[in-house]
C-alpha cells in the first residue's frame, strides 16, 4: 500500500489486480483461540502450584530425606530389581516370541498359553503367589539338589519372578510384532546372498525389528520401574517400602511420598534419555524422513504455512 492509500476514504485508487500483488505485506492469520487456551492452562497450573505451596508440606523435610541413606538404599534396590526383571523379561520374551512363531504347533500353543496366563493375572496377585509358594510346595528340587522353598523364594526372588515373568509376556508380544513388521522380501534377499538362518535373524531381521520394538520396550522398562513399588507388599526393601517405614515412625507421610516420587521421576528421565540415543542408533537409514517430518511439525506449531 502506498501513502496515498492512508486515511481510507480520500482516494478512489482501484484495488490491485492480478499480477500486481508482488511485494505486498502478508498478514498471518491470528490464532486468538491459542492465546485463550494458553491463558486458561497457565492459570490452572498456577493455582495448583499455589495449593501445594500453601499446604502443610514441610519442604525442608523433603530435602533432608531426599539423600537419606535409607532412601538411597531403597532406590538402589528399586533399580536392581528393575534391571534384573527387565533382563529376565527380555530373555524369556524373545524365547516365547520365537516359540509363538514356530512352525511346531506344540511350542506355538504353549507360548500362547504362557502369554495368556501371565498377561491375564494382575502383577500384585502374581507377586503374592510367588512369595507364598512355600505354603503349597515346602521344598523345591532340581534333580539331586533340594532346598526349602522359604530359603529359595526370598522377597527378591519372588519380586524378580513376579515382575520379570509378567513383563516377559508383554515383551514376547512386542518382539513378535517387531519381527512380523520386517518385510518378507528382506529375508528372501538375505537368503539369496546365501546367509544362514542364524545370520539372517541376527544381521537382517533383529536390527530392523529393533526399530519397531524399542519405543514400546522403553515404555515397558518405565512401567517395570514403577511396578517394582508393588514389591513393597512382599517386604522387598525397595524405595516405596523404605519411605513407608520412615513415615510410620515420623508421620511425615506426604513428604516421604514426595521424596519417592522425585526419585522415580529422576530415574524415568534418565531412562528416557538413554532410550532416545538407543532409538537413534537403530534408526539408521530411516533418519531423512523423520527430520523432515519434525521440521514440518515445528512449522505447524509456530503457525507458519507449510511448504
Amino acid at each position, binding site marked *: 500500500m502506498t501513502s496515498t492509500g492512508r486515511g481510507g476514504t480520500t482516494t478512489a485508487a482501484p484495488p490491485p489486480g492480478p499480477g500486481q500483488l508482488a511485494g505486498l505485506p502478508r498478514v498471518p492469520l491470528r490464532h486468538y483461540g491459542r492465546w485463550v487456551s494458553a491463558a486458561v492452562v497457565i492459570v490452572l497450573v498456577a493455582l495448583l502450584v499455589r495449593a501445594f505451596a500453601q499446604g502443610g508440606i514441610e519442604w525442608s523435610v523433603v530435602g533432608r530425606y531426599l539423600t537419606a541413606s535409607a532412601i538411597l538404599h531403597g532406590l538402589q534396590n528399586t533399580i536392581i530389581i528393575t534391571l534384573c526383571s527387565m533382563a529376565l523379561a527380555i530373555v524369556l520374551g524373545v524365547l516365547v516370541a520365537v516359540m509363538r512363531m514356530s512352525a511346531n504347533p506344540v511350542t506355538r500353543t504353549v507360548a500362547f498359553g504362557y502369554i495368556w496366563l501371565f498377561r491375564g493375572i494382575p502383577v500384585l496377585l502374581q507377586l503374592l503367589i510367588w512369595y507364598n509358594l512355600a505354603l503349597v510346595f515346602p521344598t523345591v528340587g532340581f534333580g539331586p539338589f533340594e532346598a526349602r522353598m522359604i530359603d529359595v523364594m526370598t522377597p527378591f526372588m519372588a519380586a524378580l519372578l513376579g515382575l520379570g515373568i509378567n513383563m516377559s509376556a508383554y515383551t514376547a508380544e512386542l518382539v513378535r510384532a517387531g519381527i512380523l513388521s520386517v*518385510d518378507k*522380501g*528382506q529375508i*528372501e*534377499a*538375505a*537368503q*539369496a*546372498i*546365501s*546367509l*544362514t*538362518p542364524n*545370520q539372517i535373524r541376527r*544381521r*537382517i531381521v533383529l*536390527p*530392523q525389528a529393533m*526399530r519397531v520394538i524399542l519405543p514400546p520396550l522403553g515404555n515397558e522398562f518405565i512401567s517395570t520401574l514403577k511396578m517394582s513399588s508393588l514389591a513393597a507388599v512382599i517386604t522387598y526393601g525397595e524405595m516405596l517400602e523404605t519411605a513407608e517405614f520412615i513415615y510410620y515412625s515420623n508421620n511425615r507421610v506426604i513428604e516421604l511420598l514426595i521424596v519417592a516420587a522425585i526419585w522415580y521421576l529422576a530415574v524415568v528421565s534418565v531412562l528416557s534419555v538413554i532410550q532416545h540415543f538407543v532409538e537413534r542408533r*537403530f534408526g*539408521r*537409514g*530411516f*533418519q*531423512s*524422513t523423520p527430520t523432515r517430518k519434525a521440521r514440518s511439525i515445528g512449522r505447524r506449531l509456530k503457525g507458519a504455512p507449510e511448504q
Partner: protein
Amino acid sequence: MSQPQTERGATPVVRAIDLHKSFGPVHVLRGVSLQVRTGEVLCVMGPSGSGKSTFLRCINQLERVDGGELWVRDELVGHKLRDGKLYELREREIARQRRGIGMVFQRFNLFPHMTAVGNVVEGPMRALKRNRSDAHAAARRLLDRVGLSDKYDAYPGQLSGGQQQRVAIARALAMEPYLMLFDEPTSALDPELVGEVLDVMKALAGDGMTMIVVTHEVGFAREVGDTLVFMDDGIVVESGPPRDVVSAPQHPRTKEFLSRVLG
C-alpha cells in the same frame, strides 16, 4: 515341447524337467521343462500368474519344488539322492547351493539399515568369509561398475529406485555368481529410470554372464536375449530366438500377449 538343443555353451547351467509347484489348491507350475546354457541370456515373458516368477524363485529355492527335477550345474536342487530316495536338504546345504546364484528382485529388497557398501559386502563377509578390507574394496569396484561411485555411504532410503536396483545388482554380483536371476527388475521403476538399470544388465550380458530375466521389456529381450520363453498357465507355451518369437509368434496366446504388450 521341443527345446533348442544347440545353444552357445555346451554345459547346461540350469536344467528343469517337468517342474510342478502348487500353492495350496493353485497349481502354478504344471510341468515346466527348459535348459539354460553357459553364457546364455534367457528372457521369460508371460501374463501375470503364468508362473514365471515362481519358476525363477524355485531355481534359488525361495520356493520348494513339488515335483519334477531341477538341476543346477549337475547338482540336484533341494534334495539329495541316497539309497533310491530323495532327501530334503537342510537350510545350511540350501545356503551352499544358492552361493553361486545371484538374484535381483522387483522391489529391490535392499537392507534399509545398511549403506550401499554395507549391502554389497554383507554376503561376501558373512557367507564367503572374506576379510573386511578385501570385501569393501570389491564392493567399491562393483558400485563403480554400476555407476554409483558417489553413493558408497548412502542409505537405500536416500537413493532413487533406479539407483537402489543398481545397488541390488552390485550386491548380487559381489557373491561372484555364475548365474544371475532377474525377477521383473524394472517393473517397480518410474519409466525414466528403467534405462539405467537395463544398461547395467546389457553390460553384464556382454561380459558373458549367464542370465535368466523375467521381464516385460520386449526391446531388451530382442536386443540382449539369446532365447525368449513365453509362459502361460504354468507351462512353457513357446520358445525360440527372441526376434522370431516377437515378430512371428506361433502360439495364439503368445500372439495375444505380445499384441497387448506392444500396444
